[in-house]
């Protein structure tokens, strides 16, 4: 008799390994004996930039005590390590192959160091595990768990743990004349957040559980398959320990990505542009402490990001980026009826990314 954890793990491994073999019994196994690589990728990105409002000071408000400025230059270091496993592809129809299972484990770290402002340097550690299973060419699901631990000036600040089940639907076959990819995702997220800095008032305690439901649609045009359009809607509910942070959020989000050539051998193919925008409609339940408990907070938030990345060097097999230069601009505007939260922020940064992609084995 095996212990529960061992037997469960064994069953999962057995299912992952055996299922593709049974499903692919009718086809020529030698022809579709696909590479089954376990891959490990690592990327490191140093960057420098300028942030117009590091402390997110409300418009027209005086600087808080002990802070001499609101804007600052900054240095950022980011790194990510990803382990990935995919099951061997199987044939669903004579001309259709599908890899049905994928497991991705990753660790990311990002730290910002602001020049001339102390007490606001964040360090973010993020661990995540993701399992994807495709039932067929259309339907699939994904489960992602994530833990994000944040430090400020090296001191523990917060920890957020989330579980995110996702249902995926591929519908390109219904729009073959115009779409290379037409997919939808239905995302449900459950998260708990703990903050370690003591709040100045009980009402400002940000410890919370939150829940969100999201629907997004991704479209890749058939005639220009290096462009991607995505639109989504999210409803988010935050139940906090402090009354200031009980709120509902409705988010509309859009993103566009494109490369500048359809042919991977062209140099312009290595140039990629990304534009992301979202608008949040936040409605808070209770009168806010920053308004003297006179009225509840209502925020409308605009967030725009635009970035360019150019792959200067490619990996040995020319499949992925080895060394890239990046530049991005980020604009955030929170229109709040509470002056403390009514602020703009502009951030511009430039840097590079070095990626290692050589660790593959069967």
């Amino acid at each position: 008799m095996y212990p529960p954890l061992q037997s469960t793990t064994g069953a999962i491994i057995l299912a992952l390994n055996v299922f593709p073999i049974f499903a692919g019994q009718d086809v020529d196994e030698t022809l579709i004996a696909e590479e089954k690589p376990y891959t490990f990728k690592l990327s490191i990105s140093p960057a420098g930039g300028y942030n117009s409002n590091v402390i997110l000071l409300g418009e027209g408000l005086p600087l808080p005590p002990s802070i001499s400025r609101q804007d600052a230059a900054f240095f950022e270091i980011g790194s990510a390590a990803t382990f990935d496993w995919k099951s061997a592809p199987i044939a669903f129809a004579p001309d259709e192959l599908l890899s049905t299972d994928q497991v991705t484990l990753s660790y990311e770290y990002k730290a910002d160091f602001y020049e001339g402002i102390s007490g606001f340097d964040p360090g973010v550690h993020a661990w995540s595990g993701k399992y994807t299973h495709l039932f067929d060419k259309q339907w699939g699901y994904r489960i992602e768990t994530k833990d994000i631990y944040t430090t400020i000036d090296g001191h523990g600040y917060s920890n957020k743990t989330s579980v995110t089940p996702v249902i995926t639907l591929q519908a390109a076959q219904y729009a073959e004349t115009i779409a290379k990819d037409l997919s939808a995702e239905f995302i449900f997220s459950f998260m708990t957040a703990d903050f370690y800095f003591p709040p100045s008032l009980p009402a400002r305690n940000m410890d919370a559980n939150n829940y969100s439901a999201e629907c997004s649609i991704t479209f890749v045009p058939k005639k220009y398959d290096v462009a991607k359009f995505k639109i989504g809607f999210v409803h988010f509910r935050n139940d906090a320990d402090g009354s200031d942070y009980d709120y509902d959020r409705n988010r509309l989000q859009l993103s566009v990505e494109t490369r500048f050539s359809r042919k991977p051998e062209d140099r312009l193919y290595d140039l990629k542009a990304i534009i992301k925008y979202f608008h949040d409609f936040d409605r808070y339940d209770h009168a806010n402490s920053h308004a003297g408990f006179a009225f509840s907070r209502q925020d409308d938030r605009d967030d725009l990001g635009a970035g360019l990345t150019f792959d200067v060097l490619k990996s040995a097999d020319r499949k992925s980026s080895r060394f890239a230069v990046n530049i991005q601009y980020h604009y955030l505007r929170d229109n709040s009826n509470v002056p403390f939260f009514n602020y703009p922020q502009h951030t511009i940064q430039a840097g590079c990314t070095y990626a290692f992609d050589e660790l593959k084995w069967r």
Partner: protein
Amino acid sequence: MNITKPIPLKATLLLSLLLICPLAVAQEDRGERIQESVSSSDDRIDFTKSKAEPPKIESIAYQDSLIKTRDYKRAVSELARLERKTKKRATELGFTKLSAKDERALAAARSKVDKARAAMKEAERKANAD
């Protein structure tokens, strides 16, 4: 005679509120500012993450690369089969060179392999760039 008039309840509450409000507004909360700052940083475009991401199995580009890889392997297999067949035939007939017909067939098979390989490489790059 000293007469004191009781202060109405509403006025008392208002007075208390006015006394509390300035304190509450003035009280700085660094934790809240940091939270807003960290959230804003999280929402920036993350090139580090995207460069380390493996292709997703649900993406059309990745599925396309599997098909193209399968096609390439089929073309290589077909070329190998043809090479074995033509060499065997030439050996059986005692020829030192392949016949013109066999040479043409082999050239066509090699061309097919080259095309399939180029298509596979293009699909792989698109899958990784997705």
